[in-house]
């Protein structure tokens, strides 16, 4: 059995973690009452911990137990300031790592964070380093959420610097989710967040369950690690669940790779470096020949593809995980971030000059009372 640690850092990470806990309680139908009656049902031994400097963000969580909420005392957050955040982490590192250590040893850790916020974007790189230092054999995957582009220049700036730091740490890989890309699923922002959080939660739990299941065709943590180490070590996930109308496993695989079902806008055929396809469903739907043909077809364009087949009652469900050899959307973000930072810098200079000109009016004058 896999020992899995899921860390939700910052407001975004906390909410995705809360969605994971909700999913473990039964998913979309879970209510506040459900959590009082049922225990979260994780496929493996999963420990969750929500870390935040803003206590109000922690209080908003609904499906995460109190003991799994760790407040890092720093007044009321870090104000999207990554430098303050980093200092807060360093000041409370022992406390944070002590809380994690209490939860035992782990094979796999997911650090779920927003790249744009204050706490998550500043804590996560440092936290991953600490995890890798403390747990020698742990596989650390970062679930990094990119911001809405219109959220502001600071968030874009944070995303840019945070992504760079995340790329530099020793984590096995980054799985990207792009809020900007996913917001199309819902009209308003709040619903979009909930939907995105739920999608990420569903995929992660499916991945954990599959890695810890006896498979018809085996993929395991090692394969997953290999996939995540491919290309830029930045990847994303796709998911599709077939229905009664079209239970074809082949179509399900294809659909799981379509951009509409990905967490991050990518072209699998063109951009992927390595991939893993995990298929789950009733045996009657799992035509191995069809699966193999589809995987081979994917391998021809996407490099190496691991496939795992889990026999479980139901229509076929397919999770695709792949790392990318190129990430043009990221470059666009960095360009946007640079522009935003430049604009910010120019604004500040202009404002400074304006203030200096204003102050010039009273130069050589004294206060008279």
């Amino acid at each position, binding site marked *: 059995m896999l020992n899995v640690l899921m860390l939700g850092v910052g407001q975004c990470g906390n909410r995705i973690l809360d969605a994971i806990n909700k999913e473990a309680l039964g998913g979309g139908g879970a209510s506040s009452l459900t*959590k*009082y*009656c049922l225990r979260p049902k994780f496929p493996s031994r999963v420990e969750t911990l929500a870390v935040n400097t803003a206590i109000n963000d*922690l*209080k908003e*969580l*609904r*499906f*995460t*137990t*109190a*003991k799994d*909420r760790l407040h890092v005392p720093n007044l009321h957050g870090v104000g999207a300031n990554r430098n303050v955040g980093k200092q807060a982490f360093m000041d409370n590192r022992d406390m944070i790592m002590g809380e994690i250590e209490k939860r035992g040893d782990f094979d796999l850790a997911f650090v779920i964070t927003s790249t744009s916020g204050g706490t998550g974007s500043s804590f996560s790189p440092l936290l991953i380093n600490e995890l890798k230092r403390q747990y020698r054999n742990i596989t650390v995957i970062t679930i990094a959420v990119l911001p809405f582009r219109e959220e502001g220049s600071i968030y874009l700036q944070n995303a840019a610097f945070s992504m760079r730091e995340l790329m530099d740490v020793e984590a096995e890989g980054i799985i990207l989710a792009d809020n900007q890309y996913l917001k199309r699923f819902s009209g308003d922002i709040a619903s979009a967040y909930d939907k995105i959080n739920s999608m990420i939660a569903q995929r992660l739990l499916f991945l954990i369950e599959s890695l810890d299941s006896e498979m018809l065709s085996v993929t395991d943590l090692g394969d997953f690690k290999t996939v995540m180490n491919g290309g830029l070590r930045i990847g994303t996930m796709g998911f599709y669940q077939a229905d009664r109308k079209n239970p074809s496993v082949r179509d399900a695989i294809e659909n799981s790779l379509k951009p509409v079902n990905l967490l991050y806008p990518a072209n699998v055929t063109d951009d992927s470096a390595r991939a893993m396809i995990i298929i789950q469903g009733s045996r009657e739907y799992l035509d191995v020949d069809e699966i193999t043909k589809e995987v081979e077809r994917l391998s021809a364009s996407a490099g190496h593809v691991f496939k795992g087949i889990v026999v479980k009652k139901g229509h076929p469900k397919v999770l695709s995980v792949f790392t990318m050899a190129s990430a043009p959307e990221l470059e666009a973000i960095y360009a946007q971030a640079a522009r935003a930072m430049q604009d910010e810098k120019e604004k500040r200079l202009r404002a400074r000059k304006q203030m200096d000109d204003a102050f010039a009016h009273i130069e050589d004058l004294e206060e008279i009372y």
Partner: protein
Amino acid sequence: MRRMIYLAVFILLIQAVHAINSSDEDTVTFKDFTLNIGDRIDIGDYQAELIEIQSVKDGLAVMQVSKVGSPLEDQRAFLLDSANNIDGGAEDGGITITVTDIFDDQSVKVRVEYKEDLGTARKHTSERPRVIADRPNLVVGKSFDKNQMSVGDEVKVTVTVKNIGTGQALNIGTEDLPPLPEFSYIAGYPPKIKDTLDPGGADSAVYVMSAVKEGSIRVPAIQVSYTDSKKNAKSNSSEPFNILINPESKPDLVIKLDPSGPIAAGGKGMLNVSLSNTGKASATRVKIEAQIKPPDGLEAIGLEKSLFEIPPEQEVNYSAELLGKKAGNYTVSLKASFQGGDAAMIQEGKVEVVVQEQEYKYLYLLPILPIIVIIAWMYRRYREYKY
């Protein structure tokens, strides 16, 4: 002259007093004496001695009368209450003797009449030892062993004859009245008493009768007849008495059934049975049979019994165990068949027994406990999520 008148009056007075004194000396007086045989009455020169009591029954006593200095010496039988004049009787200067009572064969009461000038009559008690006479005296009695009885009851009649006299009673015979219409004789009649009974001796005989007709009955006396050694015939009778014969007595069983209360299905209960005989006769060969309606759902253990006898005014109590199997109302009927005299009788009793749905103790906790557990669980979970 006056002196002559006074003298004449004085002389007349003296004559009158003398005349009065002369008439007093001629007055006849009497005196009663109780005499035993050998006792004697002396009056003047006359002597009268009681020789014997010839017959108490006939009232004959023999006395010897003599006169000192006279050849009169006469032994004669005196009839009770018959005056006997000696020497012309008291009016003529003699004496008159009357036996006024004969107490027994040893003593009598005698009245002696005489003129006062004979002096005072005195009794001279005989110094001879008294001879105990040979006189049997039988006392007879008849008794029932109970004063009240019922038609059909048997009664023992005891006839007792006892010789309380001093002589042997001979030729003893009893005469009891023929059977009364209220009784039928069963055994022992007529009663047989010994022919002879020595002084102090007694004999009895018992006969058994059965009462056949109710009413208040006066039982007539029984007479015993006998003779003494002198073949004097004597007899004696018992006192009659009353008895009451009640209507024929029957047993009357009253059955009381008292269940311990409602029984829970699957539970046990008790049914207390009381059979009391309020009749006047014993109920015998009592057989108690039970019936439960409807037959399924209630079982009784130890309800049926057989008893040899339940005497009158007594009761028999016992308990039966009831096993409730199915909820419902059940009628437990008890039929007691028994013998009452010659007749077979039946008495019935019934009672309702309720078998309730099985009651679980603290059943109310069943819904409460899970609620408490759920609330506790939810509170615990709430605390787990409370931040």
